[in-house]
Structures are given as C-alpha cells and as structure tokens.
C-alpha cells in the first residue's frame, strides 16, 4: 500500500581518505536499508568497503506525500474560506442588510441590550431554516463583538 515515492533509505557517508562526504538515497525496503545495498556506486575499492561502510549511517525514512498534500490543501481552503467570509461580513453584509427588515434590530444591538436581545431574535427565527441560520449568525456576531470589546478595547483579558 505504500507509495513508491514515499520511502527512502538515506545513507550519509562522511569524508574518508581524501574523499568528500556523500549522501546516498534509494528507495529500498527497510530490511535492505544498509550501506551495502544503498551506496552505489561504491566509491572505494573492495577491501575498504567494510571500513567505509562502518562510518556511514543509514536511516530508513517514510513519509506520506498524500497526507502532506491533503493537509496543505485543506489548510489553504480554510484560510481562504475564512478570508472570504471576513470580506463578506465586512463589505457585502452591510449592503444586503441595508434594505432588510433587520436593520432596526441590528441598530438595537449596537446598544447593549444584552439580556433581551437573544430572545427577541429568537422570536422571529424558527420558521424557516434560513432564518434560523441567520439568527444563529447574529448571536455569534454579537458574541464575537463582545469578545472583541473585552480583549481589544477594554483590555480586561488576555493582555
């Protein structure tokens, strides 16, 4: 099941008798991950192989390039989605709302009628899915605003 791309045996051979160090990589199975199988071409004559190989260090490594790919793509998607949603909230949302029946209520929210607001919001929601989502979104926005005030404006927390 392992991808051919995703295993390697990496041998690092340090400088030896006027030769510089070398790095060798091959994809062989874990069992064969040793100097004799990986170091090709062998840079030393036959009788020196044992000594040269003693100095080399071979490590078998595995990775999953699919995991990496999927992770990075998901990450970029989430960042993108958040940015788009942020722009939407910043730019488009106020425009849409302007001709909305919620306008009144949103202005109410600006004043801090904390206890009453959720229930008044709840009154209108509950009929269609969209409106309930809307209501939840409003509550969430209020909450973030509250957090923003606590952290950024009043510096009550997390400073």
């Amino acid at each position, binding site marked *: 099941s392992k991808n051919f791309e995703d295993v390697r045996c990496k041998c690092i051979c340090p400088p030896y008798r006027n030769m510089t160090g070398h790095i060798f990589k091959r994809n062989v199975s874990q069992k064969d991950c040793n100097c004799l199988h990986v170091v090709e071409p062998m840079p030393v004559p036959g009788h020196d192989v044992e000594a040269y190989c003693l100095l080399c260090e071979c490590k078998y490594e*595995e*990775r999953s*390039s699919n995991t990496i790919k999927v992770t990075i793509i998901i*990450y970029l998607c989430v960042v993108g989605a958040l940015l788009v949603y942020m722009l939407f909230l910043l730019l488009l949302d106020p425009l849409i709302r302007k001709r909305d029946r919620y306008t009144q209520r949103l202005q109410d929210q600006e004043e801090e009628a904390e206890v009453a607001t959720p229930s008044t919001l*709840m009154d209108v929601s509950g009929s269609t899915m969209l409106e309930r989502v809307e209501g939840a979104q409003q509550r969430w926005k209020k909450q973030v605003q509250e957090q923003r005030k606590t952290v950024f404006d009043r510096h009550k927390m*997390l400073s």
Partner: protein
Amino acid sequence: MDNAGYNTGSFDGLHQVSDDDEMVDIAGATLDFSTTDDDPPLNSGGYEEYSSSRGMNGAGTPAAMVHPLDDPVPGLGTYEDFNTIDWVREKSKDRDRHREITSKSKESTVALLHRISDAFSGWLLMLLVGLMSGALAGGIDISAHWLTDLKEGVCLNGFWFNHEHCCWKSNETTFQERDKCPDWKSWAELIVGTTEGGSAYVVNYLMFIFWALLFSFLAVILVKAFAPYACGSGIPEIKTILSGFIIRGYLGKWTLIVKTITLVLAVSSGLSLGKEGPLVHVACCCANILCHLFTKYRKNEAKRREVLSAAAAVGVSVAFGAPIGGVLFSLEEVSYYFPLKTLWRSFFAALVAAFTLRYINPFGNSRLVLFYVEFHAPWHLLELGPFILLGIFGGLWGALFIKANIAWCRRRKTTRLGHYPIVEVLVVAGVTALISFPNSYTRMSGAELISELFNDCSVLDSSQLCSYKEVSNTTSGTSVGNGMADRPADSGLYTALWQLSLALLFKVIITVVTFGMKVPSGLFIPSMAVGAIAGRLLGVAMEQLAYFNHHWIIFRHWCSPGADCITPGLYAMVGAAACLGGVTRMTVSLVVIMFELTGGLEYIVPLMAAAMTSKWVADAFGREGIYEAHIRLNGYPFLEAKEEFEHKSLAVDVMRPRRADPALAVLTQEGMTVAEAESLVESTRYSGFPVVVSQESQRLVGFVLRRDLLISLDNARQRQEGVVSSSQVLFTEHAPAQAAEAPPPVRLRSILDLSPFTVTDHTAMNITVDIFRKLGLRQCLVTHNGRLLGIITKKDILKHMAQMANRDPDSILFN
C-alpha cells in the same frame, strides 16, 4: 433539551433537533457551542412547551436520553459568564447522577447498558481527545513547516512540499548542502533567475519580509475578526478555567479553528514565538467540544474540568512528544483538581495523542519533535559547575523576562499602545524579519535552531557549528560511535559563535515584546532557544578551554587529549532547560520532558541541577512564574495552590460585612413575602444569600444562590397560580398554619443549600484558604457561637491576599 437554559423563547421540537446539528456544523453561521448554556433564562416563558418537547425528544435521539435529574426549572444550577463554579455542588450533582444510574441499572438491561456506556464514556472521550489533538498537531506541524519554507522559495514538483520533502528523492544533494535540489526554487531564482549575487539576495530579503508581514497580518486580522480569545498562549486562562472560572467561548469551536489556523501563520511569520503553549489551548478546545457528545461531561462543570486537565497533558504530549512529561506538566503547572482517575486518563489520552502524531509522522523521520536528540556521551561530575552556571543564567533570564514582559504588557493594557494591535503585530513582525534575515541562526525557525544547537557534532555533520580543525589520528581505531574527540575550533566555528551571540541578544529583546501580542504565541520555544544558544556558547568555550589546557588540574583526569570529554550539545540542552525553568518555574515536568526528548536517564542530574538552580535564582527575584504573573496582571480569580498563606489574619478580618458596613443581607426561613425577597435581591449585587431561622437569633439554616432565587421566583410568579407579591416565601419543610384567605406560599426549600460551609470567626485564614482551595468553594459563611456573622467569598480572599502582599486589592476583577 440537554442545554437547559439555552434559548429561552423557543423550546419547540424543531429547534431541539437543530441544536444537535449546530454542534457539528462549523460552516460559519452557527452559534458557538459554549453559548448554549450562556444566556440567563430569566424571562423563560415557555415551560410547558419545554417539557412537552422533552417528552417527545426523550424517546428520540440516543444523545437525548432521559435524565431523571434534570432540574424542573430550566437554568437552575448553571453559571453566568465570568463567574466561579462551586466544585462541591458540581461534584455532588455528579454523584447523584451516578447513583441514580447505578440504582436504575438493576432494573432493566437498557439501563445496565446505559450504566456501562456511562462508565466507559470517560475513556472513550479521552480516546477521541487524543486522536483529535494528535491529528490537529500533525496538521499544524506540516502546515507550519511548509509555510515557513514558503518564505524562502517554492517546490516545483508539487507546491505542497516543503524544502526537505521537495528534495526527498533528489540525489543532487551534497554532503555540504543537504537540501539543495533543482526542484526547489528560491524566490530570487523565480523572479530574477539567479541564485547568487547581490540582486538575488535583495529579492530573497524582500520576499522574506513580504511573507512575514503577510502571515502576521493574516494572523492578527483573523484573530480580531473571528475569535479574539484565540490570541496569546492560553495557558494562564486555562489555569484559571481549571480552577473553576467560567469564560464562555474561550474553548469554543471558533476559537479552535481560528487558533489552529493563525498559530500556523504566526509561527511561520518568523516571529519569536512557539507553538507549544497554544497547542495546550487547542487540545483543551478539542476536549471541550468533544465533551458535548457526552451528557456526563456536558452538564457538569467539574467533570468537564477533569477532562480539560487531561487535555492540557495531551497538548504538551504532542508539543514535545513527551506523554509522561505532559501528564506531569498538567499536574504540576496547570491543574487545580487532579484526582488519580484523571492521572490515568490523562496518561492514556497523552499516549493516544502521541501515537496519532507518530502515525502522521509530520517530519518524516518517525520523531514527534524536530529537536529530538539522542546522544549518550558521558558527562563528568566537574561539569556540574558550568551546568549550575547555566542554571543561574536561566534563572536571571526568567526573572528578567517576566519583569520586562509584564511591564510591557501593562503598558499595552493601560496606554494607547493597546489601541493598535494590528499595527503592533506588523511592526514587530517587520522588525523581526528585517533583523533576522541576515543572520542564519535567526533566519531559521526556533525549533530548527534548537535542533541545530542540541546536535552533537559527529563525523556526519557538516554544519558551521561543527567546523573544527582536523587533527591527525582522530578517525583511527574502529570505534563505530558518533562521538568525536575534542578538537580545536576552526574559523567557521568562530563566525558561528559571533552570529549566535548576536542571535542571543536579538532573541532576548524581541521575545519580550512578542509574547502577549494579539496573535497565538507560545513561550517555550523562544525561551529554549535563548537557553540553548547560551548553553552552546558556554559548551564550545568549555571545550576549547579543555582542549588547550588539558594539563590543568581540573581537566587532567577526564579530559586527556584525544578523549571526547565535553559535549556542547548537552550544554545547549541544559541551558534550554534552565531558561524554560526560569520562565515557567517548572521543575519535575521540565526534567521529564527533557528526559523524554533525549531518551537518556544519564542526563537527569545535569538537567535537575540546572532546573533547580534556575528556579531558586528566579524565585529570589519574584515568586511567580510567567503564567501566574499574567493571571495576576489580568486579575483573574485564581487561588494559587503552590504558595502558602503566611499571615496571621482570622476569618473575622476578611469576612463581609466589615465593622462599619451595614448588616449582612439575609433571608429568613419563613415570614418573608415574595415582594420583600425580590426587593432584597434587587437592592443588592450579592450572588447568594444566607437563610436564617429568624432575624433575631441569626441561626443559620442554609444558603440560596441569587440566580436560583431569581429564576425560581420568576417561575413561581408565572406558573404557580395565585402567587402575588404578598405571598409568603417559605424555606421550611412544613408550612406553618396560615390564614385561609392568604395567597398560597412559594416553597423554595428545593433550591436551598442545606449544607453550606461554615467556619467560626476565630478560624485562622490559612486554614480557611486551605478549605477554599481543597474543596473548591465559592463562598463560606462565618459563625460565632452558632450565630451567623458574615460571609467570605473567593474574591474576598483574593483581595485580602493582594492587600497582604501590598498590592492593589481592586486588581481582582472577576467574581
């Protein structure tokens, strides 16, 4: 339906179903889960609908099974935001629940199954927390690595590969430049087409700064837009939450998403911060969210805190690949209430998380952390001298850092600086990028730097730090080990040392202003980096000293020429431990974490010596670690379990009312009307009222919470027929004889806590503080010879402690 007291207007069935949806719906527009028991349902008017929907729902979804212990009035037994929970009440609620399930389980098989699933739900939850945290940590590691390398260039055979993975198979890598391969293009190569020369350098420099600014801007803007609570390290707040404080939304799903995302951005932007502290916050968010799958934990604040304690262990476990160290960190540093059961469970969860991370294998080398080292070079007893020196350095750095950082944060809190969080982040990120690019040791990420510094110079190494002069006969013999004899330093090493010194200076300064900015920021990595640099410098110095002076009496016995007697990497490790210890004041958990990082028991003594020295030196300048200092700065109601209360005060000195104050507001168990009770509640801001036999005798009957009282009175007025303002409020078991035409009384014995904690007025405050700490009380009544005298709340104690320490008692902000 389990979220009693949630949305007060509509308890219809439809909404109940959607309630469960919302928990898994992360598509943006939903309510943060943790508001589910947020809004005070003072104006609940839908009780009938509520109970009917409850009946409907009880047979429905499995998550919504019948809970016989549900309070009849929604909202009873919940807490408001920024309040402290009552541990005793929560724990006995859970015990009642458990007893109920146990006794029911004898009746039917379903109930028995329910009992078994209830018993194992804790373990299942731990498994899930471990899996989720491990997966997230793996994702963070992979993304941060990629994004960090993105500042430098891009991989052509797959943009999602970081530098190392881009050259995974390439055979063009050489011994000197191990990650050079044609697939990886630096920005200069892409833009101006050359890798060498001044123009390439300038392009790379500019791109580096550009990305740093972009990443940090994105991080701060996302935090500000979606989850302000996601900033900072989170550990001070989690400590406070674990001690019983409630911060709604702090561990919510928006916080989780935004913290995960912005943590990667912040780390990649090159700012001097780490991901270890925020990972604890991330793990706690996971735990809190997963708690909502299990009734046992969703409805009980105390039980949930047990899970959060375990989650803190999980966070450190994945941050350092150290499950045991994580558990000890949670025990030593974070947790408040840590029963043995939690010990086992957090160990289990930490293991699961570590193995999930191991399975994901983010670094491709089967290690959980970048700076894992494995060396077995011996150390000599005389080396304890330099190790203790490093400990002193670490302690000084810790004390200095705490003082400077707190001063800076106070400045941010109080002056106009705090009004420009975005500008602040951009400026710091720009300056960091500008200064750090020219120096290769600041350009690399903190974890890589530490990894490089911890590394022992073997023959296989080609880094600048290992450029020693070759001495003849070094490779003779057939010793296969990696250890190499001490050799004189080369000019490359001297350059490296200069660069390291500058990096040290830069890190020390920039970390002070970075920690506390409005991006997720951990402190472990920068602290360790500072210590590792200092340690490596000292280590190389010692090595050269020993090499050139091996005839000195102190070196003669163990440092003969040709021997490998001093390991600079070990010094770096000890230095890192010392600095981390100085800042956080961890001891055992620190040593165990380092021990798990190196896997060798032989270095426990040097690490211990350094950690202890560092703690003692730092304690001489101020008793509190960085987290406690931040807790105090923010005025959270946190009763430190480590420091003893040393003063001679008695309970009577701390309790309210003071001598000059008006008498304590009390209710009597009978004889009060609803109107009187309501006006008493309205006219005061206390969160609870003692109930006495009569105003004259002041003999204590019980204690009733303001919130419960308000809800019950409200409820009675709306539901109970004939209740008017002149109705009697009764807390007694049996109603006294009343005139026939009198309105029916409101019976409130069910909300009365009949076993309030009391101490006598002569009780020493140290005993009282101990009781508060160990039992997790919110308030305690004070009596004298059986008469009620006053009340002590947690806030009173904290204020008193502040006063005793000559601090401003009004700095305690919350209840």
